[in-house]
């Protein structure tokens, strides 16, 4: 297990370096003069030229690349073009805010989907199952910016129960977490239902029934435990999607997270900031993937020796 973890951490380091290289060349492929972007459209040519020299943008590509990698490995991701703050200082707190939003949403999505999915499988092909299936289908087909705007209108503008943006009190959490969490729960519920129907159709369930084990024990102990393996994988993949959805949800609810920062930085063409956001997002995805992998091996010891 320890060897596996070290192996994967090594993979993460390699992936991170590859990612940085990829981002460096990707951002060089963007049309436009980066020095002109920093200086602004109306700046005189002499200023643009001095910025180009100060930032080393007149150096050969290889020199620029090595300087960039050396700086980044020392934790220096450059300065934002607009606020002139170090990128790392801006990104850090934003990442934490995104983690809060995605974490609570994931928790909500997992609990709702485990409950609804199991109920759906227990009452398979009966009205309750159909109702839950319709709910999950509606959730899959409605983009979160539609549910988000509807939520803002009813609870924020019309009823005035909840604040429509920001994250200062617990009330600010309700709408973003509900929007993002329920959207994820819709997809998860379908998956949990399919896994549970599969698990409840096995022989040991029939055996348990014939022994007279209470139905609740059968479903939540015998059934759910056996359905859990594929569900864990799916939840892991879902966590990545929740983070992706967070980028959209943050824009709807003015949540000061990494996703909104990234979108804003793209719209204002603040390239160093965009680069930092993409890098940290990508590292989070790789980390999440690693954790799911380990969790999966922990849950199914048969895989541990692979």
């Amino acid at each position, binding site marked *: 297990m320890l060897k596996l973890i070290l192996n994967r951490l090594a993979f993460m380091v390699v992936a991170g370096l590859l990612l940085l290289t990829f981002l460096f060349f990707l951002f060089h492929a963007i049309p436009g003069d980066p020095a002109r972007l920093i200086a602004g459209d109306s700046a005189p040519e002499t200023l643009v030229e001095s910025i180009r020299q100060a930032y080393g943008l007149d150096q050969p590509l290889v020199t620029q690349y090595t300087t960039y990698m050396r700086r980044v490995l020392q934790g220096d991701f450059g300065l934002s073009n607009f606020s002139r703050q170090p990128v790392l200082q801006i990104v850090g707190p934003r990442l934490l805010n995104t983690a809060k939003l995605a974490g609570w949403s994931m928790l909500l999505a997992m609990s709702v989907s485990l409950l609804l999915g199991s109920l759906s499988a227990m009452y398979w092909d009966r009205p309750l199952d159909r109702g839950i299936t319709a709910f999950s289908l509606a959730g899959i087909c409605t983009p979160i910016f539609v549910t988000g705007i509807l939520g803002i209108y009813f609870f924020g503008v019309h009823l005035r129960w909840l604040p429509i943006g920001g994250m200062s009190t617990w009330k600010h959490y309700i709408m973003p977490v509900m929007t993002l969490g329920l959207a994820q729960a819709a997809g998860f519920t379908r998956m949990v239902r399919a896994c549970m129907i599969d698990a409840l159709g096995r022989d040991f369930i029939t055996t348990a029934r014939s022994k007279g084990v209470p139905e609740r024990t059968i479903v939540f102990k015998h059934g759910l435990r056996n359905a859990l393996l594929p569900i864990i994988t799916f939840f892991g993949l879902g966590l990545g999607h929740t983070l992706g959805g967070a980028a959209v949800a943050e824009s*709807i609810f003015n949540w000061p997270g990494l996703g909104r920062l990234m979108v804003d930085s793209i719209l204002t063409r603040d390239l160093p900031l965009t680069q930092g956001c993409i890098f940290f997002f990508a590292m989070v*995805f790789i980390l999440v993937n690693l954790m799911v992998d380990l969790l999966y091996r922990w849950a199914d010891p048969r895989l541990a020796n692979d």
Partner: protein
Amino acid sequence: MMDILRRYARDRVGLFFGIMLLAFYFVAITAQWITPQDPFETNLSEGLEPPSAAHWLGTDQFGRDTLSRVILATQVTARITTISLLFSLLIGVPIGMIVGYIGGLLDAVVMRITDMMLIFPTIMIAIIIVVVVGPSEHGVVIALGLSQLPNFIRIARSAALSVRRELYVEAAVAAGASWPDILLRHVLHNISSPIIVKSTLALPGFVLGASSLSYLGLGVQPPTPEWGQMLHEAKDFLTSAPHLIIGPAIALSLFVLSANMTGDSLNESLDPKLKGRRIKRIVPRLAPWFFPRFWSRPISP
């Protein structure tokens, strides 16, 4: 072909949503003629009006007719999703087919790259691509086409792998057929069904991707209407003109719902057990999409 359609037609729910999807495409194609008013004509004195007989869905902040804009947005969405879907198919299927058929190091490298891409949510990859190509309609097409590429490569690869060891492929090799010929005539011919199914199943993802990007301001730019972009604009007028969200929200959700249900239903009709001869008949019809030149010759039995 008829068999698949007959089986599909027996699924009432699927058929209903299939017709709805076709209706959306009909609206998209005829959008120029059926918009009640000019979707770009501004009239500031009639801004933010509630629904009325003249404007069924009201007017936006510039006094433009919302219904006309929703109808034109259908065309924009249909255009973006169709082109980006074709883009993914045209690039992903040949790559997947070739690496699946050849295997070896090339296969391993391509699979590692797709694995890496699949770690990230599609919307993230799409956003990163938009950074490079710039926010525009072309940008959305490229971003969606490329971000969905790994899925298409994988499906074509696994399908190609499954037929690689089939007797008819070995027979073709023994008969001295060239490898493009084997790929096109024998492999593509036999793997088209999962690819067709996959492309219908991927359609909702394309629609959601296009509208999410436009909602974020990274996609279709105003004044061109797009559902996501219209919702983004409507969000600023929730207190004074909440009716602005009705049209785009309903249209977008219904389009995704009908695409989803049609894909599911077609998926069931194209049951793998029933593939083979029945599927073969639609292949010559779809093949010109992929490789126009090679398919003019009749297919050998």
